[in-house]
């Protein structure tokens, strides 16, 4: 980077490109490449389908991204710390079912649907964190175990394993309401993403998380309480899964114990397409949101074009691999220069 000053007098195209990239990387914490991919994808879909470019379809895409988006935020936070949470989808299913059971089955007042969902998620995340830091069981194993436990609990809570239907109106509003014409889940997603982005990119908590993800030993040496931070992160991750469960429950007006099956993998995919490293130390919530949107636009566009879902899976798998390839390519180039 020290050569930049000398070259600035006569910037060539590659140099300018790198400056723009640098701006997005540092100021916005977003990879320019993923933004370009998203823009290209939107342009292509607009050309291919006359139904793509409309406000209502744009809101559809955001609405379809809402639960996965919230889970992807959780995945980004945990991955940045070089952790892993495979229980996200199951905890989401458990949370929504628990919240619905408290209100519909047990007859408690409606705020317990919210408190119950978030609480169940937080509790599952707390247990994950305790087992990982105190019992020293690898995160992969603990959260894989929780994946089964949470799903089983959800199916036990729900009568006959079926969905618990019919929530009070204030709860349903969180999923089906439209404040200012924007679907509530989208509002929740955007607010959560902005808060989480601030947390990870600008707060001390975020700096510590990224430092721990980059090099745990060094983080410990600088006085960061690595264990406590990790517990907080897993509890936060569980709570966010609870929030996703709440959104889902409100959206379909039912606590569905089978909600969120294999969503953890989709959430991790969104995070990685957005530039978060699977090995920690690197992660951005805005990047993840772009990753989630790339997947959302791809799915929506292909649906409008009546492309079979099998091809959609191939497309998303390819985008994932391509995104990581671009990352590797950049990293090698940077190392060389």
């Amino acid at each position, binding site marked *: 980077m020290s050569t930049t000053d000398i070259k600035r007098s006569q910037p060539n195209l590659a140099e300018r490109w790198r400056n723009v990239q640098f701006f997005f990387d540092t100021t916005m914490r977003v990879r320019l490449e993923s933004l370009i991919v998203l823009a290209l994808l939107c342009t292509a879909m607009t050309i291919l389908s006359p139904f793509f470019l409309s406000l209502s*379809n744009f809101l559809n895409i955001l609405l379809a991204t809402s639960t996965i988006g919230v889970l992807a935020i959780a995945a980004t936070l945990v991955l940045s710390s070089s952790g892993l949470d495979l229980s996200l989808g199951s905890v989401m299913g458990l949370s929504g079912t628990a919240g619905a059971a408290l209100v519909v089955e047990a007859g408690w007042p409606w705020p317990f649907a919210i408190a119950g969902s978030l609480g169940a998620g937080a509790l599952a995340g707390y247990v994950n964190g305790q087992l990982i830091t105190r019992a020293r069981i690898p995160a992969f194993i603990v959260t894989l175990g929780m994946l089964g436990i949470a799903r089983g609990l959800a199916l036990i809570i729900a009568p006959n*394993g079926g969905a618990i*239907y019919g929530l009070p109106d204030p709860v349903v509003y969180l999923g089906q309401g439209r404040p200012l014409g924007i679907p509530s889940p989208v509002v929740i997603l955007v607010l959560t993403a902005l808060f989480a982005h601030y947390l990870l990119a600008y707060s001390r908590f975020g700096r510590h998380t990224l430092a721990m993800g980059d090099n745990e030993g060094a983080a410990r040496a600088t006085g960061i309480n690595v264990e406590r931070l990790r517990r907080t992160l897993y509890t936060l991750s569980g709570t966010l899964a609870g929030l996703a469960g709440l959104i889902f429950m409100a*959206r379909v007006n039912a606590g569905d114990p089978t909600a969120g099956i294999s969503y953890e993998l989709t959430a991790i995919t969104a995070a990685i397409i957005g530039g978060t490293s699977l090995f920690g130390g690197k992660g951005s919530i805005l990047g993840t949101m772009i990753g989630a949107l790339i997947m959302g636009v791809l799915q929506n566009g292909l649906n409008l074009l009546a492309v079979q*879902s099998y091809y959609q899976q191939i497309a998303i798998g390819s985008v994932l691999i391509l995104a990581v390839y671009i990352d590797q390519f950049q990293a090698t180039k940077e190392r060389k220069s």
Partner: protein
Amino acid sequence: MIRIKSLALASVAVLMSTAAFAADKPLYGVLMKTLANPFWGAMEQGVKAGATAAGVEYYLQAVESDQAAEPQLNTCNTMLERKPAVMITAAINSTILLPCLKKANEMKIPVVDLDNNLDPDITKKAGVDIAFHIGSNNEMAGAQGAGFVVSKLGKDAKGPVLVIEGLSGNITGKHRADGFANELKKAAPGLEIVASLPGDWDRGKAANITNDILTKHPDLVAIFCANDGMALGAVETVFAANKGDKVIIVGVDGNSDAVKSIKAGRLTASVAQLPYLVGKQAVENVKKILEGGKVDNVVIVPTLVLTKDVIEGGKEPMMEFVK
């Protein structure tokens, strides 16, 4: 006739006037569960045949698996962007599509419940208006399965029977299992259902359940599975345990894999759902509605017990709908 048709076309064109450009033929939206199951493949063929005969276009979507509930809701919302003349939907469970179907109601797009996946009580509670429900009657199909078992074993037969249900919470599987259990109790009280477990529509899971129950009840006389996929899983386990000639295995759907297995003398019978006929009749009835006609709120498509004799005998007229 031509005038009625053009009138229908005109009304559809009005519906689609907000779209970027209107297609010249009415577009029927068809949302299925997944195409990774020959049952839905056969239904798609029926839809295609019906659409060709009716001179309409159809826009068919499905999701990656029959457990991908939220993706199905998202796909449903996306399909409404193309403002189809009708939404023919096979919901993954009884609640997931309700927000989208409500939106379709608001857009004055009639909604058809394909294969009876919606619960009329819940749709009423949610304020969703269904033009008609079409499919086989699942309780009747289950009862037909029980009738077949009793016809084979006799009404005084005794012995343990296993029931493998569908996905927990799915009413299709529940109705089939209930229909079977109720009819069996009536027709042959000596046959006792020793276990009724959810196989989640999963072949492997059904195989495991069969294995476990066979260990506990080696004298098992019959197995009823709420779909063919699971029945085929059960068949493999029963034959692996060398009990192929002792246990009657009945599935539901009559899909091509099941037909192959029945012909090979492995699966005993399948209560065929005739999905081809369901798809075809769905389109035919939609056309009737769009042209201002009336259709019963519940359209029942008959089922047929497929055995080796029925398939190879060539005497059953309904065989032409078995795809």
